[in-house]
């Protein structure tokens, strides 16, 4: 009943980063398995209409996926597992740094080891102390041998020893070097028996391309039906040809607001206003930084033209600070904001709506990287870390690579370019390419990546989070939507002595529900930091742990059978 599948490279996530990684690795001769929760490749950005776009035509032309990525759908070296989630994963039961030594040639092995060894060391340093150490401990998972060898100079000896141990390990270590094991389920959490797909994926190398999730800040009524993220409105429209409301507000902060509003407007929705919380002044000044990126400026101008044509006001320095309705949103309160996002007294006005689409940016999805023991990269001023990586997209765990929004939210172009490097690096780690060709192969991509990252950084600077949102919720406002934890409970927990996010979670259950804090986590972190008078890094985050996605207990019991014994 258990079916396993083996790959040189497992890529998790089929957005631009994952597709590029899969293509790069497969072009180098790797057998790639590309796992994705979606039914079609493209991720959240390149969405194909679920039913071929036949009926309404809404959003049907908006997929916009570059031709170079479309090749992933037909590449013979890429085995795509759609509608599939990874709910658990383990690292090889062997020393770090040996994943390149697959016996296909001394050169490949040596190259892989040198790179991997360097990475592990660098990870420890760059990951800033505690977190990186924690990462390594998790990775070692009680295997003291791994710890010893991190410090060992004799890489070749270590590799030899590891291979011997693997041979002895028998059932514990799968055939060959495919030592990473990913447990798979379908979107409903059912493993192979129900989804007719494999339930285990073994691989020599793993590319994490799991993207990011959207941040929405809480305000009274934000949990009323009809209030969604902007990403939800985009996904509904692009993939499903459906809109959540016909008289809506698009609110929040960040570059997602304009395209969302433009797409909805084009689809016939009456967007009453676009509300950007950050003020226009500094944004205009900093927008000069974006001027050299003419293609991006043109894209933004295109959205603005659509909105202007339909007389949709785009209002800076404003936000939706409350929603009202019985059973669904009917009215929304718009407030003018001070520079630090406090509502200006007396500026409130109510408008009639049947939906509000809110978005305040994105947080890297770190569940898989943390489970595998990869060190975080703290992001200053942001209530979210990213995955630490080196210049080859290698994480602190040898054989594990990361690309795209998990390494820091920077958009589709950076994601794709990182993906090509990560895929090639994974192929090197799996022993399919040596360092010389690897460097040559990735040189052009790296040049593009420098420019793309410069744009992303400039754009990011336009949309800082300001702490004034902390005055939007009322004491009774639900902060944790799953466990229905009220705003007042957070402050009370801090007043009672909870000094960090995990302590507040323990006291209040905030972040302990179905979503495991994916929605309230960043919000909770900033709330606790301000209430406790500490920094974001000092209060920490929820540090979600396995499982990666909820599955029935029966599946967990099953895993002891096929691979855990």
């Amino acid at each position, binding site marked *: 009943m258990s079916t396993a599948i083996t790959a040189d490279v497992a890529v998790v996530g089929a957005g631009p980063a994952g597709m590029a990684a899969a293509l790069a690795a497969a072009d180098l001769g790797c057998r790639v398995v590309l796992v994705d*929760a979606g*039914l079609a490749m493209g991720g*959240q950005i390149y969405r194909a209409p*679920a*039913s*071929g776009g*036949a*009926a309404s035509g809404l959003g049907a032309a908006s997929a916009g996926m570059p031709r170079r990525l479309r090749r992933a759908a037909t590449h013979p070296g890429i085995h795509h597992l759609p509608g599939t989630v990874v709910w658990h994963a383990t690292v090889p039961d062997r020393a770090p740094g040996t994943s390149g030594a697959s016996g296909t040639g001394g050169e490949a092995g040596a190259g892989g080891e040198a790179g991997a060894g360097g990475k592990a060391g660098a990870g420890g340093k760059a990951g800033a102390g505690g977190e990186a150490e924690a990462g390594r401990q998790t990775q070692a998972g009680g295997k003291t041998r791994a710890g010893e060898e991190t410090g060992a100079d004799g890489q070749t000896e270590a590799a030899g020893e590891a291979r011997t141990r693997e041979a002895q390990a028998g059932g514990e270590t799968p055939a060959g070097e495919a030592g990473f094991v990913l447990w798979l389920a379908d*979107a*409903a*959490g*059912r493993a192979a028996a129900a989804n007719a797909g494999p339930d285990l994926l073994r691989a020599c190398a793993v590319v994490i391309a799991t993207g990011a*999730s*959207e941040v929405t800040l809480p305000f009274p009524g934000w*949990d*009323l*039906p*009809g*209030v*969604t*993220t902007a*990403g*939800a*409105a*985009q*996904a*509904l429209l692009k*993939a*499903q*040809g*459906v*809109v*959540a409301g016909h008289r809506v507000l698009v609110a929040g902060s960040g570059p997602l607001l304009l395209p969302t509003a433009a797409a909805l407007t084009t689809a016939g929705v009456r967007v009453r206003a676009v509300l950007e919380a950050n003020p226009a002044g500094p944004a205009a000044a900093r927008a000069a930084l974006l001027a050299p990126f003419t293609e991006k400026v043109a894209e933004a101008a295109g959205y603005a033209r659509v909105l202007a044509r339909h007389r949709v006001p785009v209002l800076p320095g404003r936000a939706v600070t409350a929603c009202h309705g019985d*059973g*669904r949103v009917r009215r929304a309160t718009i407030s003018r904001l001070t520079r630090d996002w406090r509502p200006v007294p007396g500026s409130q006005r109510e408008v009639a709506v049947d939906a509000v689409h809110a978005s305040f940016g994105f947080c890297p999805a770190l569940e898989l990287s943390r489970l595998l023991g990869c060190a975080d990269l703290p992001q200053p001023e942001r209530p979210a870390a990213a995955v630490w990586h080196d210049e080859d997209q290698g994480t602190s765990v040898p054989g594990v690579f990361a690309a795209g929004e998990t390494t820091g939210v920077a958009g589709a172009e950076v994601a794709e370019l990182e993906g090509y490097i990560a895929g090639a690096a994974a192929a090197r780690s799996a022993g399919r390419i040596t360092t010389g060709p690897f460097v040559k192969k990735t040189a052009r991509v790296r040049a593009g990546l420098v420019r793309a990252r410069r744009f992303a950084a400039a754009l990011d600077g336009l949309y800082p989070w300001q702490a004034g949102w902390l005055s939007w919720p009322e004491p009774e406002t*639900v902060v944790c*939507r*799953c466990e*229905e934890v009220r705003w007042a409970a957070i402050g009370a927990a801090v007043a009672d002595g909870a000094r960090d996010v995990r302590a507040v979670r323990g006291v209040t259950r905030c972040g302990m*529900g*179905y*979503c495991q804090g*994916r*929605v309230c986590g960043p919000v909770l972190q900033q709330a606790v930091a301000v209430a406790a008078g500490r920094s974001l890094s000092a209060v920490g985050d929820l540090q979600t742990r396995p499982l990666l996605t*909820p*599955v*029935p*207990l029966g599946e967990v019991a099953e895993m002891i059978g096929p691979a855990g014994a």
Partner: protein
Amino acid sequence: MRKERVSFTFDGVTMDAQRGQTVAAALLAGGVVSWRTTRSGGRPRGLFCGIGVCFDCLVDVNDDRGVRACLIPVHDGDRVHTSVSLGPDGLTAQ
């Protein structure tokens, strides 16, 4: 050739949807905005994140309880039910 529309029931009422649409999209297209109430507050819930992250949109489909309506495609003949409460054993969302 497969027909483009599929038929399903929501709490016993027949609705239709485009083939391939998710349960959430099909319900929203039919004017239904919420299909669950929360365990302690009894508050209505529908679509929120739309991409499988938030678990707000949990719904019962046939014999599966608490599946994410934003991810699951609706099939011809599906019986979709409001998850009034996920119940005493309902902590296991799927």
